[in-house]
């Protein structure tokens, strides 16, 4: 890896006077302590929402998809909107852990664990929609190419919906392995600190007998790098395949070649916004402000700003090409988005996704925690509406005016969505109390180059001799 030398212009990533032991203690504290009242309140609310969601899903499966607001023209509405939204949110986790690893971004170390957890929990939410938006979800296993008694009746590999099955399942499994591998040294740390036999037992099992030998570390690093190299094309391809659900069609507003990279950019955009939302709260309630610093938030804001601008470019490109194409259906699709009955959702999407991240150009705003928090929420709302706009406004008015209609969600649609939010937070809240939320082993590896304490010590030496230490 790169040397420990770091340019003086780089700001510290671990602030305060911290040593290796402090890192351990700070990371272990939320796991070893007891949950407070606020945690229980939050957990109860999330659980209630989750149970409500289960009720709605059970009702849908028992009664039929007609309990939703979808109709004969708009066969996909909130179900797929939520699916794409959740998948998109999941992407920042892989991005932070894999792409930022490939780009040797040291700041990722404090946030990658939670980002990956967020990936896994949100992909679980996403995966429910493809199953429960089926008319006959009990036959869902038919999407698998399994030899069977129907004369080996197989699936058709030409459908992007089938590619979704492979993409999402691969994505979930690879992310899970990647996450768990990274957790081994940290679980081992919790195991070694455990006082009760029960926690000792639990973390011994979870840590797979990690003993931290040189050979293990060497292979650990190699595996991380290989998985990062695999996860990066995976993250691009997964959301690309999700975008193919629309882009391979012939629907005006859906059939456009920019969708693959633009969905990926949107996924990074919304995913980082969600990471920001969660970490701004987490650093406060778990007392991790020394590790998740303002600089981390600022850098995430910059990523949000960049991907928001890319998404903005894609919007403008779509608008321009719709005009340029001379295809009147295409032109109408965009006219309808801007001025049709769903103009408000288009306006919301444009303001939230294109305008709001642009305020991050101001350092005052991107280094303000409250502003970052608000904008991260705004972005997630905007990105929900982006998917809604793409799906519903393209469907409700397309080729045949006699098929034009409107979409009105029912409370079951909403209930399912609320249920997934509840489930997500149930998982995330449980995670934050039982898992090391910061990859302490990784954070310790940047202690010598990037902690405030060590920077101060090194600068002291550097001033005396005016030389630059080259310590590998």
């Amino acid at each position, binding site marked *: 890896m790169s040397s420990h*030398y770091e340019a003086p212009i780089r700001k510290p990533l671990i602030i305060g006077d911290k040593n290796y032991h402090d890192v351990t203690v700070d990371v272990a504290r939320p796991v070893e302590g007891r949950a407070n009242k606020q945690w229980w309140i939050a957990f109860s609310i999330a659980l209630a929402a989750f149970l409500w969601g289960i009720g709605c899903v059970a009702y849908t499966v028992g009664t039929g998809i007609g309990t939703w607001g979808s109709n004969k023209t708009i066969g996909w509405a909130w179900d797929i909107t939520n699916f794409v939204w959740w998948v998109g949110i999941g992407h920042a986790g892989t991005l932070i852990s894999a792409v930022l690893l490939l780009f040797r971004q040291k700041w990722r170390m404090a946030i990658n664990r939670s980002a990956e957890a967020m990936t896994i929990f949100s992909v679980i939410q996403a995966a429910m929609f493809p199953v429960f938006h089926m008319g006959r979800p009990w036959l869902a296993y038919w999407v698998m190419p399994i030899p069977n008694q129907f004369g080996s009746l197989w699936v058709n590999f030409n459908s992007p919906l089938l590619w979704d099955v492979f993409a999402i399942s691969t994505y979930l499994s690879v992310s899970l392995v990647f996450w768990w591998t990274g957790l081994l040294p940290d679980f081992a740390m919790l195991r070694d600190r455990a006082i009760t036999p029960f926690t000792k037992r639990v973390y011994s099992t979870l840590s797979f007998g990690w003993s931290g030998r040189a050979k293990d570390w060497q292979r650990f690093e190699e595996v991380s790098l290989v998985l990062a190299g695999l996860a990066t*094309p995976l993250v691009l391809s997964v959301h690309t395949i999700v975008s193919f659900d629309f882009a391979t069609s012939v629907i005006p507003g859906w059939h*456009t070649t920019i969708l693959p*990279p633009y969905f990926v950019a949107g996924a990074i955009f919304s995913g980082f916004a969600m990471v920001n939302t969660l970490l701004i709260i987490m650093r406060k309630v778990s007392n991790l402000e020394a590790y998740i610093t303002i600089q981390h938030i600022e850098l995430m804001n910059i990523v949000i700003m960049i991907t928001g601008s890319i998404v903005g470019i*894609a919007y403008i*490109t779509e608008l321009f090409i719709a005009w340029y194409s001379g295809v009147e259906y295409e032109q109408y699709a965009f006219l309808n988005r801007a001025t049709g009955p769903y103009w408000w959702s288009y306006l919301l999407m444009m303001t939230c996704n294109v305008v709001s991240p642009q305020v991050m150009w101001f350092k005052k705003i991107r280094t303000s925690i409250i502003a970052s928090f608000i904008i991260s929420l705004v972005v997630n709302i905007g990105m929900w509406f982006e998917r809604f706009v793409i799906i519903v406004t393209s469907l409700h008015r397309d080729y045949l005016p006699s098929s034009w209609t409107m979409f009105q969600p029912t409370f079951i649609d909403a209930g399912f969505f609320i249920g997934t939010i509840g489930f997500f937070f149930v998982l995330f809240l449980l995670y934050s109390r039982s898992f090391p939320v910061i990859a302490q082993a990784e954070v310790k590896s940047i202690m010598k180059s990037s902690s405030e304490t060590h920077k101060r010590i090194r600068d002291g030496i550097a001033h005396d001799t005016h030389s630059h230490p080259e310590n590998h």
Partner: protein
Amino acid sequence: MYTFSSKLKTFSFVLIALGVLGVGYSFFTAPKTIEDVEKILAAEEAHGHGDHGDAHHEAANPHGEDAHGHHADKHDIHKEVSTSHTGRGDGHQAAGHDAHAEHDEHHEHLEHVLHQLQNKPWSALYVGALFFMLISLGALAFYAIQNAAQAGWSPVLFRVMEGISSYLLPGAIIVFLILVAGVMDWHHIFIWMDESVVANDHLLQGKAGYLNGPFFLIRAAIFMGGWILYRQYARKNSLKQDEATDNLYYKKNFKASAAFLVFFIVTESIMSWDWIMSVDPHWFSTLFGWYVFASFFVSGITVIALITLYLKSKGYLEYVNTSHIHDLAKFMFGISIFWTYLWFSQFMLIWYANIPEEVTYFITRIEDYNLPFFGMVAMNFLFPVLILINTDFKRLSWIIVMAGIVILCGHYIDFFNMIMPATVGDRWYIGMAEIGSVLLFLGLFILVVFTALTKAPLLAKRNPLIEESKHFHY
């Protein structure tokens, strides 16, 4: 300080001279009249390429892959959605293929071939000019990203990147002159510039608000002006930072780079619609801008790697080690995959939906450009990915040079595939015009870039990240 070796300088002059000869020859020998075309076709026929009745395409196709069945299909498509492929003779479509006397049809065909053959040297020149200018722009974009990202590994390569981007100024002027020549009606690369074509084509009339000569040139001037402005400003600050006592110029460059990247992402998209996509003015693809970007971005990075290796081999880049090369090679590898991702996304989506307006673009390419179209995927994806996946290989100069040459040739063919089918159709071949144009711009590129490299020390001295970069070890 770097001194331009006299051998290399002579070599660049030789390349330019050969290029000028090749380009000049191809302009000189391009047919001037229909009679010339008749002679060419007669000569081709004499070589035994089937009877004259269906010789139109077959005789012209050196690969003989164009089955006669496709021929009829293609003419139908041309009638429906004429691409500029059909040349200026728009009557070609209006005439109605079957109803007319053979003589008229023959005459139209000759005119059509004449336009294609007249386009050929111009298109070859344009592809070469564009390709080398975009390499320089790609290197500039990489430089801006490195600055804005505060990369710790690359500052020792900044002077190399600045050298490469010095070609932007002359390169952009040449491309601009070719665009002006189009508006002046000297060539027909851009069919929408021909008023007689637009008069018969309501789709082009609909686009005239955007695709018209003056606006087209104004846009081009603004884009090129903006890029050159950033390049000159960043270079100036980079040199001033060498002598400075604080980081003021570094900060100025940081801000300028961020601003440039915003300007670049917008102008790059529009540039690709204007200068490349509009040669097929009926066709459109939203992904196109990003696809073009990936193509020249990876070429730019490859050239950075090649020139770094050259300078290193001559003993000029003291602090560049195999880790720096490794990083560049990783970018070559990664962006090659990214290019393929965009290529596949665009191709697959259009193939899958098979909407006639869009799919003609790939039909002409697959039928008439089969080998270059699929060959470039092998060159731009399979080869670099297989060879550059190995960590040890990414540190070996000869591997990088080999992969780099394949990548550069592959992306030249990529641009060739973007321009030629619309301008010369099935009349393409890689001959004097194409090779001459590449040699000409390669010579010019070497001359300009290596001259710029002699103007300043090859190590940016007081860049605040230079120490990190010098000690970079991966």
